């Protein structure tokens, strides 16, 4: 795994370099025009946010029920990534909205639910940081409940009146748009895996330092 890391980084960089070109050559959307191209980065980022939420939730469950420290390290890494990608979604979304709807925020269900999910993971990191000893378990409960919450807020988007394109969009993309879109998804997914691995390595090092401190005290 470690040896595959560098080539994968190169691949990710290539994908990210190619993506804007592919996006530029994609056919323009009939109504939104240029601004719609934000979609090529906005939606994959949202996918990564949801992916992070699930990874963190499942890792937290494993940590809670199997007491696996490794699972906890994966969970905290995924939690941080959720915040990073969530931030991207929260900034690119309003940028799109400001141009197209004229307002920065419309309380539409999709963006609101992404915001909520993001806040859940900010709370996750807050409780881990300030909860005192044993806070990993508290955070794990939060992540687990946060993950379970995802379907509820996601369903709301399809049952409320909303300006946001619904989940049908991805399945009915025009052929010319599909290529760049899935290319961006692949790029983001690869990047996500690399960042997760990197961040987990940081946690592993931290755990090693703690072990050494304990060994020294004996």
């Amino acid at each position, binding site marked *: 795994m470690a040896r595959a890391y560098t080539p994968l980084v190169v691949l990710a960089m290539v994908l990210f370099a190619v993506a804007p070109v592919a996006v530029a050559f994609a056919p323009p959307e009939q109504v939104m025009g240029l601004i719609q191209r934000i979609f090529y980065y906005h939606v994959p980022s949202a996918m990564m946010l949801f992916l992070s939420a699930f990874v963190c939730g499942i890792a937290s469950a494993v940590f809670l029920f199997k007491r696996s420290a490794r699972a906890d390290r994966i969970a905290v890494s995924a939690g941080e990534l959720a915040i990073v990608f969530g931030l991207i979604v929260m900034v690119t979304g309003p940028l799109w909205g400001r141009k197209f709807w004229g307002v920065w925020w419309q309380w539409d269900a999709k963006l609101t639910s992404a915001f909520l999910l993001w806040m859940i993971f900010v709370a996750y990191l807050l409780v881990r940081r300030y909860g005192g000893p044993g806070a990993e378990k*508290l955070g794990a409960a939060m992540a687990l409940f946060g993950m379970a919450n995802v379907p509820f807020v996601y369903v709301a988007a399809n049952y409320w009146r909303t300006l946001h394109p619904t989940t049908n969009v991805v399945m009915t993309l025009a052929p010319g748009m599909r290529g760049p879109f899935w290319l961006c998804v692949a790029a983001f997914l690869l990047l996500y895996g690399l960042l997760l691995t990197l961040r987990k390595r940081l946690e592993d090092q931290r755990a090693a330092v703690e072990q050494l401190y304990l060994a020294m005290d004996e």
Partner: protein
Amino acid sequence: MKQFARVAWIVMRKDLTVEVRSREILYTTVFFAASSVLVFAFALVREGRPMEDAAAGILWIAIAFAGTLALGRTFERERQTETLRALMLAPSDRPAIYVGKLLGILILLGVVELVLVPLVGLLFNAPFGARPLWLVLLLATGTLGFASVGTLFAAMLVRARSRDVLLPVLLYPITIPVIIAGVRGTAALLQATPDEPMARFWVALLVFFDVVFVTLALWTFEPLMTE
């Protein structure tokens, strides 16, 4: 199963007995809820008339705030007397303790709501009596959703640092779907012609939420409370 129910019943009775004797949490929570309603009234009423749907929103916000306070106080009491540790040491089914505490909180919040609903109805001229059955259903499922997550979080935070501020920090994001469903459902019922299909939809969502989160809480109570 019977043992489970017995333990839950005993824990609930203990909580209620303590509460009935002192009535501290009940009075303070009810008063706090009423003053929140007043604060919202001054904030949201313009020229003597409240904004649309204000009544539904204010009711549920007051429930959420009061609930958080009640949860914090209940478990603070347990912490001070170290009874929670004693409970955990008892050779009983741990989730039963959770259920007992949950029932106690539910009853407490139910009494608070008994006061709150007429109060909000009066102050905001809202016809809460229009479809009483649906309203009760909404309140019941919504309060259960809020309390189920709240009891678990409050219990697990008992030994944590910064527990006072961490409870709302953790609780509110998770229970926002409950608040949304409660407010929208109540607002549907308060309209000139109560919108029953809408209320039914939100009640269904709340029931689903309750099933999922009570189950999750039962599963995670034991690993969370043990070192």
